[in-house]
């Protein structure tokens, strides 16, 4: 055993992994749960009868709606125009008639305008002209015209990202897909390999770099093999793949950059400060379709999965598909009248039982009846949706309403039934420091949480609240089940509000 490795093991400050060869320090290893959907081919989810396309599906200014109620639109037609530099175009995902705008909740709970279009199922398609050998300016314009945004979940307009302020020498493609359950990027890497690589080539030209690295986690050997095969068959040397250690959050920007290039993005900085730009796999694929085929961005591959659902899978879902339709397509149930009636029965029986106990009356047969009805309820709860998450279990947002619709940045719809969604009670912090042990940004979450509970924002900032990437490692490993991410996110908001 090398002496240096021995010394590193003993005095290793890195907590967790002993070798940092293809990974970053700290982090956690949640169960992957990818087997549910990783071998399922991407299929087309049928377009719903009505789509509710959110006007805000990105970071940036709200685009202006350019269609009116009653107007007929085609699939792929512009319905909201980007307003300003940091904004994006929105396109219709079906052909049909525009209805009046509705205010519906977004996945994070905020209400926003949604353009409602009634589908006439004729799928008349509007495409832009194909580009065969575009220049950099043409590429950037096409990326903007087709409304390409960061499809990893953040939704930053790609054409702005391709024009960074600092000089950049490498393009990183984020194929890590570290979140449990999500497999959409993996399926794209397997089924659309050629289009993906060509899309990466377009992105390289748009960014004006000569080197691109696709970072892929080790648990996707098929994808690595297939991409490598395509690259070697076509003698492409400017793009390479790099297998990364399987760890969460390997796909987080700063951690990915460190793992691939060993450069550190300082707290508060951007990847372009260290000469790197990171893009998601799906962004590259959509860029290819936009340039080669003139397709505007109105649909995306979404993984619909969860422990209890019968038919999980990866689907091409049109923007604006209500989550209720998605749930119905995979055969999961929502709380209907039967479920509600059963729940009321169980609640009524419970209160009757309590009353009988207070009056000191015999409870045996009532108890048996209660048990039977409760078992029936639990049976129904097994394939009824109790929690819908936009994204993965670590960083996804739980949706409060089934009227929320899919968008360019919804990469996964995670459906959990009652048992999977139940949470353990919160107990007192035992000062174990496991949260600090796993934090990939070297923060001290227990201190931030303690100061947040005391409303001491200055000290919360001192222990790193603003540098938190909200990955969820700390709350995942906390034995006391404290909601650390919620606490830190709230501190961030208050620090900004109080301008500390």
């Amino acid at each position, binding site marked *: 055993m090398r002496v240096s490795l021995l010394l590193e093991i003993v005095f290793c400050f890195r907590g967790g992994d002993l070798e940092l060869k293809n990974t970053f320090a700290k982090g956690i290893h949640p169960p992957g749960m990818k087997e549910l959907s990783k071998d399922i081919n991407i299929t087309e989810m049928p377009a719903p009868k009505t789509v509710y396309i959110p006007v805000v599906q990105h970071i940036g200014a709200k685009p202006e709606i350019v269609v009116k109620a009653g107007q007929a639109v085609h699939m792929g037609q512009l319905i909201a125009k980007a307003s300003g530099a940091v904004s994006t175009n929105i396109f219709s995902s079906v052909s049909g008639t525009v209805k009046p705008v509705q205010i519906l909740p977004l996945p994070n709970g905020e209400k926003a305008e949604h353009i409602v279009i009634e589908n006439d199922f004729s799928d008349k398609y509007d495409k832009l002209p194909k580009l065969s050998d575009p220049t950099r300016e043409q590429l950037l314009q096409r990326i903007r015209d087709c409304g390409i945004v960061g499809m*990893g979940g953040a939704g930053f307009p790609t054409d702005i990202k391709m024009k960074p*302020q600092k000089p950049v020498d490498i393009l990183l493609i984020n194929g890590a897909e570290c979140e449990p359950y999500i497999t959409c990027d993996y399926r794209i890497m397997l089924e659309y390999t050629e289009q993906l690589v060509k899309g990466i080539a377009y992105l390289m030209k748009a960014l004006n770099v000569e080197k691109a690295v696709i970072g892929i986690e080790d648990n996707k050997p098929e994808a690595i093999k297939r991409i490598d095969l395509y690259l070697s068959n076509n003698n492409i040397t400017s793009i390479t793949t790099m297998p990364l250690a399987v760890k969460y959050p390997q796909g987080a920007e700063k951690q990915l950059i460190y793992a691939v290039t060993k450069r550190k993005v300082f707290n*508060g900085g*951007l990847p372009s400060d260290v000469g790197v730009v990171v893009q998601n796999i799906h962004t590259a694929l959509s860029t290819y379709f936009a340039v080669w085929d003139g397709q505007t961005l109105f649909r995306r591959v979404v993984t619909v999965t969860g422990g209890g659902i019968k038919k999980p899978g990866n689907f091409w879902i049109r923007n604006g598909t209500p989550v209720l339709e998605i749930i119905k397509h995979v055969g999961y149930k929502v*709380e209907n009248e039967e479920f509600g009636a059963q729940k009321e029965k169980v609640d009524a029986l419970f209160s009757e039982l309590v009353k009988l106990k207070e009056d000191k009356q015999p409870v045996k047969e009532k108890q048996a009846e209660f048990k039977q009805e409760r078992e029936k309820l639990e049976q129904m709860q097994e394939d009824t949706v109790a929690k819908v998450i936009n994204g993965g279990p670590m960083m996804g947002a739980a949706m409060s309403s089934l009227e929320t619709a899919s968008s360019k940045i919804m990469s996964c719809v995670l459906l959990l039934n009652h048992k999977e969604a139940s949470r353990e009670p919160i107990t*007192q912090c*035992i000062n174990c420091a496991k949260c600090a042990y796993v934090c990939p940004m070297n923060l001290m979450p227990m201190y931030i949480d303690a100061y947040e509970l005391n409303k001491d924002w200055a000290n919360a900032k001192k222990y790193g609240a603003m540098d938190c990437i909200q990955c969820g490692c700390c709350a995942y490993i*906390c034995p006391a089940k404290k909601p650390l991410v919620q606490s830190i996110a709230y501190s961030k908001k208050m620090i900004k509000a109080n301008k500390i």
Partner: protein
Amino acid sequence: MNKMIVSSSPHQTKKHNTRTIMLDVLIALVPALIASVLFFGPRVLAVAVVSIACCIVAEFCYNIIRAGKFDINKIPSYSCFDGSAAVTGLLLAMNLPSTVPLWIVPIGAVVAIVIVKMLFGGIGKNFANPALVARIFLFLSFGVVMTTAIGTSGNLIGVDAASSATWLANRSANGNLLMMFLGNTGSAAFGETSALALLIGYAYLSIRKVIDFRMPLIIIGAAFVFALLFDGLPNYQGADILIVSVSHVLSGGLILGAVFMATDYSTSPNTQVGNIIFGVCIAFLTIFLRVFSSLPEAMSFAIVIMNLLVPTIDKYILPRPYAKAKPQVAAADVKPGNTSPTGTDAAAKERAANDKPADQPANKQEAE
């Protein structure tokens, strides 16, 4: 209208909680308990059971008094059932001689649970290791009773282990290292004898990731080095140096303290560098006090002294930030948007847009 469960991310957590961690510690102590029964007799079990029961009862009484009223529905959520009282009880028992009169045990339990832990805020808030403070309290207050209690009650194998004096009473190079490793030797507390059993517990805790496996190694390694420096090299020659140093490591509560007491969550520092300093200082203090003071066994004092210094260590030793910020940062041309989706891109760019003007007003004015 369907009602969905909404909560903050992450939506799935690791399947452990405080109780399972405490259960793991209890399981890790079982080999040492079995070894003690083999060497000191079944009375050890009586001491252990009484100690655990007294600790749980003490915490339960404290919970009830604090709750004010007797509400039977709230009782399962009392802190006495989360396992930490049981762990304190077992550790306290392992720090006592095997023939300690049983009336002393509840006194120790009250000191450990009520005074050291509950009065300061409960689990996670104790200022020192409860079992060790109770041990020191008992040895200082009931010194005569404790030292005459070191006898045997009929052990099951081997030589009369407990009736022989501990190696620390008169240190020499004649210690039988193998016997000390296995545990067949005298000791002031029945939990400390068998290094082998304690190391089995250490292996279990490391595999279950309850403790960081490096901490006890650092303490034991540093103790060996300090024993070489303070006792081995000055006083002995040749191979005796090593024998004496190893004897130091194997005797007294060193391994028990290193594996179970120094790694206690709330009384050890929260950073890795802090833990290294903590461990090295514990090793230094225990060997120093053993060799140069009149205390035969100093591990408990060393750990408690360092426990008191942990808040200072935690105040000044903080982890390095992920990357230091460069002095000049150009304000990005990103305008804040109407939505705030989560994600690293969003956070970084929003911060770049919002924070730079607020954080560095001097720069902005300079630019203007």
